[in-house]
Every structure is written in structure tokens, then in C-alpha cells.
């Protein structure tokens, strides 16, 4: 089936056989949403399942600041600067408004290098003084850079976020970042497919964050490894775009690189009129295509999971993997009850690290700090939910509120949310990743316990020897005003 000229084959001999190329159109009759998008982007596919995909959007952040010098050193150029979008997020202090506010050193060099590279190489860069800057996974959708039907990549594992808009998006490593910069393509193995159906109605005080934490505790931190996940069901369809992004965002914490949700009227309403979204006749063309994307009736998945929305509770993690989560009404589990000896040992060691005792009610656990922010939960809806709890109350522990973008910050200020947070004694900061990854100056002291709306409770994630519990924004605010984990439904 090869259409490759023999001359090409000779250049790499048997090392990289190109004689097993098959036609890009696959023969399956009923396709999933993921397969429809994947197939449309296949330039070459091997019998082995390895496909060379065209990449529609490439997002980049400050931690890849060395990529451009490396490209120069290897004599390569950026193939499609028009499809590349950059913003600093990991390394910006949340007290800094401009580059010169960043103390000289590693952080400033990182942010500055990205900015200079953008100016020199001609790709779009939202700098610190531009209201459109923020966390890369927040601004992609916000600017309409992320659209349904795309293949979007970024050198960051939480790129799964963008799948909430109905695109195939996944995180890549630094070598792959360079590959995309040079070729605008990427070799990918066709993943297995998993559909997670969440049906029913979420109870009051229960959010997208609680849904995804429940899913991860159900399938495990490696339950999604090798799969592309699609979220479906009446509960997902009823969720806002912000809540959907929270769910797709944490897909990687279940081991899957990609978590997609079929585009619908929520998606189209969210995108219409955004800066980089198509307009006029192009919008109409796009819309006609997007409406063909939802999975076909009868499309087969390699694995199917069902979750009852009504059973999801406000959830708190207790260990060093997002899979270790319990409802707010629960207690810290006893490793002795775990049959698998390795998992038991892991639980024992997590409890030791977290300084927790089996049987302790979650609502008895006191926190030292609260962090509201990150690509998981820093959107306007998240801030509104936190403000609703903070309103008229006082934080009893230090609390950091970090909006996901400059535009979200402005919107929150327009709504007076900043005033609510300030009056509650919480700190209202400039946008960025902040204390989710804790390399911008915001971090916990050793041993400190934090209620955090971020995505990872790994050891040392929020600072050396830090102790992180993942929760929703409302639950984080409830912890801030009571000093311990508190059922948000018990606060009027």
C-alpha cells in the first residue's frame, strides 16, 4: 500500500521501514469522538498503530524556555509560528505585574527568554502586562485558541484540560515539543478508548472537582494508562464549560493523557465571539463540522465505566496520589483492611507522610493554609463558588486566591469578588500556576497541611515535605473559614 518512492526507503533501510504504511482513512463504521478527530489528522499510519498526526495548535509556557536555543543549535526553524501560542505561567511570582518585578535570577531569565524568543521568532506571546496572559490551560479556551475538532498539544501534562471543548489534546515531553516546533506533526500510537458515563443529578455543593476525584479513586491513578477517555452522560452534559475543564484537566491523574467531552451548545455558546475563534462564514463552516463530531451510535469502546452522579459527595484526598480520596463525611481508611500488600504498604507510608491516623473523621483534620487556584480550579465559576463561602466570614488560616488569567482577575474584580476575599482576610494575587507547582516563590513550609484546589497531592509538590489535600474551590474556602475540612453543605 506504500506510495512512498523507493529513494526515501533507501535512506533509512530497515531501521525505519516505511513499507507498512496504510491508507489514512480507517475502515471502522461507527467511530468515537476521539477516533473521528484522530483519523482526520493522520498523515501516515503504520500497521503497528503508530500514526504521524498533524498538530493544529501548539501551546508553550516558560519552562520550555530552552527549546528555542536548542532548535537554533540543531539548525532547525519553527515550521508554523502562526499555530504556536505562548505565555509565562509556572515561573511568575503572583506579586509581580511586570518582568522587572521579578527578582533577577532563574525565574526572570525563564520568563524573559520566552518573551524574547517570541519577539524574535514571530509567534504569539501573551506577556505579563497583557490581560490575556495566565495559565496556559486557562487562556487557550478563553481566547478561542482551543476549538472542537482540533489536535492540540503542549509540553505540560494538564493539556488534557482542552479536551473539555471537544478536541484531542494531550501533554508531551520536551523532545516532542521540539518535534512539533520543527515539523508541526507528532508520532502517536492509537490509544485504547474508555468511556466514563456520569448519569444523574449532582447534589448541592457537589462540583466537577468532586466528580473527577471520585472517578480517579474508582479507576485508580493508573486505571486510564494507555487509554483516551471520553466523558459522557447526563451529568456531564449539564455541567458548565468551567466544570468540564476541571474534569478533563485531571484526566492525567487517572493515567490517561487525553479526556474529551463531546461539543454541544454549551461549547458553542462559550466559544462564540472569542478572540481567536472563527467568525462569520468560517464559524458556520466550523459549526457544521463540529456537529458531526459526537460519537456515533454503536461506536465501541475498549472499556466502559458508569458513575452515579447522585452518589458523589464533596471529596477530600488524604494520600500522596489523587486516587486516595474520601467523601467529607468519611474517615481516613485503615491500611489493615487493604488486601494487596503493596498497596497496603503504600497507604501506610502515605499516612506517615501526611501525619494522619486511620479512622480519623476527615472533618477533624485541621489545615495550616489554603490555596485556591491552578489550571484545575482558577476560572471565574471557581472564584464565584469560593467567594460565596468567604462572603461575610473570616479566614482563620492564611489563604491564597490566584485567578487563572488576567481577564478572569478583571472579571472577578468587576463582580467585587476581590473585595469579598480581601474582607475575609484572604490574599488576592496576580495570575499564574502559583502554589500548584510551587516554583514561583509561593510554597508551603515543611510539614504544613494545605487544602488546595490544585491537581496533585504528590510528596513535596507544594514545597519540600508539604502535605496537600485536594478539594473543590467551595470546600477550600470552607476550610479557610473554619480551619479544618468542613462539609460545604453545612455552611449557610
Amino acid at each position, binding site marked *: 500500500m506504500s506510495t512512498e518512492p523507493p529513494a526515501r526507503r533507501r535512506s533509512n533501510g530497515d531501521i525505519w521501514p516505511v513499507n507498512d504504511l496504510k491508507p489514512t482513512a480507517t475502515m471502522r463504521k461507527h467511530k468515537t469522538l476521539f477516533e473521528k478527530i484522530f483519523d482526520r489528522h493522520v498523515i501516515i499510519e503504520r500497521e503497528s498503530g503508530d500514526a504521524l498526526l498533524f498538530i493544529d495548535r501548539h501551546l508553550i509556557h516558560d519552562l520550555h524556555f530552552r527549546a528555542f536555543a536548542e532548535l537554533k543549535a540543531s539548525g532547525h526553524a519553527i515550521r508554523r509560528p502562526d499555530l504556536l501560542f505562548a505565555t509565562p505561567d509556572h515561573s511568575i511570582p503572583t506579586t509581580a505585574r511586570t518582568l522587572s518585578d521579578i527578582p533577577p535570577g532563574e525565574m526572570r531569565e525563564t520568563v524573559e527568554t520566552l518573551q524574547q524568543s517570541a519577539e524574535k521568532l514571530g509567534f504569539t506571546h501573551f506577556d505579563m502586562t497583557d490581560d490575556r496572559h495566565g495559565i496556559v490551560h486557562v487562556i487557550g479556551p478563553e481566547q478561542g485558541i482551543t476549538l472542537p475538532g482540533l489536535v492540540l498539544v503542549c509540553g505540560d501534562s494538564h493539556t488534557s484540560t482542552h479536551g473539555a471543548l471537544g478536541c484531542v489534546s494531550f501533554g508531551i515531553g520536551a523532545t516532542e515539543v521540539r518535534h512539533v516546533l520543527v515539523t508541526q506533526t507528532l508520532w502517536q500510537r492509537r490509544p485504547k478508548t474508555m468511556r466514563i458515563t456520569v448519569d444523574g443529578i449532582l447534589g448541592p455543593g457537589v462540583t466537577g472537582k468532586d466528580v473527577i476525584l471520585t472517578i480517579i479513586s474508582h479507576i485508580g491513578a493508573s486505571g486510564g*494508562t494507555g487509554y483516551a477517555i471520553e466523558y459522557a452522560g447526563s451529568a456531564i452534559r449539564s455541567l458548565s464549560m468551567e466544570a468540564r475543564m476541571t474534569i478533563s484537566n485531571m484526566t492525567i491523574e487517572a493515567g490517561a493523557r487525553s479526556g474529551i467531552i463531546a461539543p454541544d451548545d454549551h461549547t458553542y455558546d462559550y466559544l462564540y465571539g472569542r*478572540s481567536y475563534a472563527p467568525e462569520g462564514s468560517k464559524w458556520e463552516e466550523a459549526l457544521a463540522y463540529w456537529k458531526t463530531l459526537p460519537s456515533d451510535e454503536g461506536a465501541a469502546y475498549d472499556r466502559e465505566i458508569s458513575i452515579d452522579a447522585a452518589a458523589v459527595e464533596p471529596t477530600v484526598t488524604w494520600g500522596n496520589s489523587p486516587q486516595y480520596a474520601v467523601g467529607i463525611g468519611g474517615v481516613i481508611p485503615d491500611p489493615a483492611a487493604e488486601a494487596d500488600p503493596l498497596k497496603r504498604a503504600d497507604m501506610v507510608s502515605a499516612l506517615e507522610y501526611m501525619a494522619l491516623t486511620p479512622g480519623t473523621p476527615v472533618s477533624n483534620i485541621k489545615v495550616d493554609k489554603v490555596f485556591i487556584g491552578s489550571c484545575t480550579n482558577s476560572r471565574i465559576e471557581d472564584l464565584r463558588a469560593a467567594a460565596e463561602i468567604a462572603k461575610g466570614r473570616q479566614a482563620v488560616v492564611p489563604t491564597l486566591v490566584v485567578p487563572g488569567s488576567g481577564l478572569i482577575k478583571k472579571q472577578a474584580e468587576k463582580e467585587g469578588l476581590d473585595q469579598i476575599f480581601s474582607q475575609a482576610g484572604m490574599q488576592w494575587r496576580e495570575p499564574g500556576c502559583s502554589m500548584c507547582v510551587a516554583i514561583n516563590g509561593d510554597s508551603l513550609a515543611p510539614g504544613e497541611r494545605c487544602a488546595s484546589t490544585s491537581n496533585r497531592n504528590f510528596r513535596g509538590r507544594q514545597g519540600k515535605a508539604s502535605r496537600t489535600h485536594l478539594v473543590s474551590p467551595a470546600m477550600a474556602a470552607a476550610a479557610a473559614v473554619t480551619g479544618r475540612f468542613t462539609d460545604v453543605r453545612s455552611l449557610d
Partner: protein
Amino acid sequence: MPAIEPFKRFSAVAVPIDITNCDTDQIIPARFLRRPKDDPDYPTFLLHDLRFASDGTETEFIYNRPPYRGGRIVVTDVNWGCGSSREAAVDALRANLIRSVIAPAFGDIHYGNCIKNGVLPVRLTAEACEKLRLLLHQSPGATISIDLPAQCVTGPDGQRYQFEIESLDKQRLIHGLDDISLTLEHETKISAFEREYLANNRWLIPKASV
């Protein structure tokens, strides 16, 4: 970029790391991510917070103890390298001359990063990994042999374990291939696809910067 060393057959002292879900934040803490790869301290970044106390002194962590310290193969538990996509996790392995990690399952992104940097991720069953770790604990300094062309691991007791690896990944490792130059051989196809695809999907080109 340092060239990728081809991987064919390799024998070395192996170190057992009994950690479930050993995420990339543990493999290399985020505060080291802005450091250049040629930083002379790079080898110390690997599993840093497990290996060093806050005063900088070495802990009792197994990788600090001879003869494990010179180990160039890691045997660990499920979901090694989950979490962040940071390729620095592989850079930290390479800085310590570690050439293979054996585990029941890997984080997907980390697995790919290993392949692209000449580090062989080997998937064996949880039982096999547990047995190998036990043997390595019992006989410090014991070696493991890996034959990639034969897709076979030989434990310190001589027991052989076959493993699966996708054919393309195997070729990448055996020949130390660089994806960019290989992809560029398909330039004609890429250009043709790009032209037709973008012409048929005008809405895909982002509006010019406002």
C-alpha cells in the same frame, strides 16, 4: 543535545525502589526544572528529596547506599513516572547513567520520554517486579541483564522474563534514532497533507493577533 546512545544488550547492578506511583515530582522536584542539563549538580536532582535531608546530608535511601549507588537499572512498582510531563525526569536518570527502568506500568508521557532519550522502560508483571526487587534486596550489588533485540530480562537468579515493546519504539532504542530527521524524510507527504487539510478547513487558521 547529547546524542542518544543506542540500546541493545545491557547488564548492570540494579537498584530496587519500592515505591508505588513514584511520580515525576519525586523523580525530580519541580524547583530543579529551570536548571541546564549540563549543571554539574544534575545527578543529585534524581529522587532528591528522598535522598537528601533538608540540611543536605544523605539519607538512608537505598540509592545512596553502595553498591546500589552505582546501579544503572531501576526495578520499581506500578505507575513509575506518573504525573508531570517533565522530561527532566529522564535527564536525571541519564545524568546518573541509568539506562533502564523495570516496572509493572509507567506513566504514559514518561514512558515516551524515556524511549526518546535512550532509556529503556521495561514492563514486567507486578509479580516479576516484586520478585526481582526481593532478590536485589537479598543480594546487594546483584546484576540484571537486558537483551532488547530478544526482548528478554535475566534476573540475578538466572530466571528469564520476556517483555513486550512496540516495534517502532524498539527500533528507536536499538538505533538511537532521532525522530525529527526521520519525520522530515516524509516532508513531501506532510506538505501535501498540510496544504489540502488547511484549504479544506479555513476556520482552523487562527485569526491574526488582535
